[in-house]
């Protein structure tokens, strides 16, 4: 878009030079001098238009009766038919409930644990031990989702899994963890904590390292013990980073990990593990119900955006920290 206005203004240069607004003038001059940079940025911008903005426009599909031959724009309008279908669908409440429960659960458990880990690591003066804990807890982050899920399955397998082997050695009965819908959420959330706490703690450790040392001196002079120092110096120092991360995770609430949940699903735990994104995948790509799946996805994205904007506004008012 910007490029087009620039090229046309280039043609008319000279004659209308003086009448141009300052912005256009600056743009033209910048373009003349740095045309190579505009050329350079063109492919990435085209990428964003094609793979991000065209799909956004394509969500109009949710209001159309999709017809493969006629294409998105040629297909007849359907009004809110697919949204009505969604809201009247008996599965709808279950999807919303599962999505929200899993998200809030992982937020409540997954948000504070990296902070606690960073605070604990920050107290350690033995660098060797500190580095070891950091490096080991950071490592599982690099395990792929597929491998992570298969590790979970191997460990929790009712017949051969190490967890059940230990449990039966201690006299407990073997449990089919992944076949039990009540356990699904805990398995998802705590395996996530195992995998990502070290990675997430890095930002908090950086924030802790950035705290003014004179604050610690002052706390020491005031006779604060370690716990009081953490509460009165460390935690306030972490607040801005924590708020940003909280906003971002709330903004992701409706987008809980499709990748992992889809792989963990089985017919037995489906009543707890079917979430909006897995439903969209099954409806849309497996059942080729494009318009309906797009409507579900759009509903999801809009809720997500609203949540993000709300939390961001609240954070701005309460703690003066926000994404923008």
């Amino acid at each position, binding site marked *: 878009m*910007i490029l087009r206005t620039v090229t046309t203004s280039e043609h008319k240069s000279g004659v209308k030079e003086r009448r141009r607004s300052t912005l256009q003038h600056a*743009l033209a001059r*910048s373009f003349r001098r*740095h045309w*190579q*940079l505009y050329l350079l*940025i063109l*492919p*990435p*911008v085209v*990428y*964003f238009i094609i*793979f*991000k*903005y065209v*799909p*956004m426009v*394509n*969500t109009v599909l949710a209001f159309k009766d999709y017809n493969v031959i006629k294409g*998105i724009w040629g297909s007849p309008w359907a009004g809110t038919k697919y949204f009505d279908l969604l809201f009247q669908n008996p599965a709808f409440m279950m999807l919303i409930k599962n999505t929200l429960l899993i998200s809030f659960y992982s937020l409540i458990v997954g948000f504070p644990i990296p902070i606690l*880990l960073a605070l*604990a690591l920050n*107290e*350690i003066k*033995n660098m*060797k031990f500190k580095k070891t*804990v950091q490096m*080991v*807890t950071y*490592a599982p982050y*690099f*395990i*792929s*989702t*597929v491998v992570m*899920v*298969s*590790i979970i399955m*191997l460990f929790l397998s009712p017949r*051969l899994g*190490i967890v059940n*082997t230990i449990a039966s050695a201690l006299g407990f009965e073997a449990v089919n963890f992944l076949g039990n819908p009540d356990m699904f959420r805990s398995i998802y959330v705590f395996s996530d904590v*195992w995998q990502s706490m*070290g990675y997430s703690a890095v*930002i908090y450790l*950086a924030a802790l390292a950035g705290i003014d040392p004179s604050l610690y001196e002052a706390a020491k002079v005031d006779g604060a*013990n*370690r716990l009081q120092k953490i509460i009165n110096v460390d935690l306030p120092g972490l607040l801005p980073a924590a708020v*940003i991360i909280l906003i971002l995770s709330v903004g992701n609430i409706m987008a809980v990990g499709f990748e992992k949940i889809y*792989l963990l699903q089985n017919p037995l735990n489906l009543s707890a593990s079917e979430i909006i994104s897995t439903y*969209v*995948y099954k409806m*849309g*790509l497996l059942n080729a119900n494009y318009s309906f*799946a*797009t409507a579900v*996805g759009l509903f*999801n*994205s809009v809720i997500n*955006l609203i949540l993000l904007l709300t939390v961001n506004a609240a954070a701005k008012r309460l703690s003066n920290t926000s994404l923008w």
Partner: protein
Amino acid sequence: MSNLQSQTGRSGANRNSVIRESLGDRLFITAIYIILSLVLVAVLYPLIYIVSSSLSSPSAVSSGKVWLWPVDLSFEGYKAVLRNEQVLMGYANSLFYTACGTFISVALTIMIAYPLSKKTFVGRSTLMIFITFTMLFAGGLIPTYLVVKSLGLIDTRWALLIPNAIWVWQVIIARTFFQNSIPDELSEAADIDGCSDIRFIFSVILPLAKPIVAVLSLMYAVGQWNAYFDALIYLKSQSLYPLQLILRSILILGSSGNMDASEMIKQQQMAELMKYSLIVMASLPVLIIYPFVQRYFVQGMLIGSVKG
């Protein structure tokens, strides 16, 4: 524990002129050491268990004899994995996707991040909003799929290289790096000397940008190596499958053969063992380079966490 004693002993000796650690504080720090040791064990144990299992004999694994170190050390699992053509093909495909995908992604990211870092680049804030908005709102699965389909990328290698090539977060990291570590005077001087922008990028920016190129490459490479979702939705031919998708069919969906009874037990034991070996083999490339490049990852996270 000896570390702990020497630590408190040292701090006592150093700081006795100011304030000695109180009993409460010493208890507190001991508790922290204990908790962190438990965390360390909890994270490390599953990893050790997997590696040990992969190095044990098939019968030891399926009878649950392995609990910490390998039992009846054997490389049967790895041999079976290396004989599996599907796995080898997936490995080769993944190496290809990782190499090409990383190159494309890093190139595109720098192509957009560098101009956006220049104050003289008119329209940079508009473009920045244009990009970051895609983090807030996305078209979703089906509309994106239809775009990829209409471009004819379905069931081609390009489907894994292009549709997800640029991560907005990486653009922000790279742009912050360029802004903070490349002085404006440098490009002004080059401008005066009549150096073109492209030449300036190749002979000045890129040599200076090695740390950020390393960070971007690592992040994209790990992402590409571990990705399975794009392959799941865009690919149909097995010959194009990346390793993760092959892993999914072996590890998660489980593909069993029809054998007679004794053969089947052996086969099952083998399949069980192969899973552990596969897990190790699939994670190996990333875990091997990890200790060497860990600081770059941390660096990348830190640059990214700087607001601006």
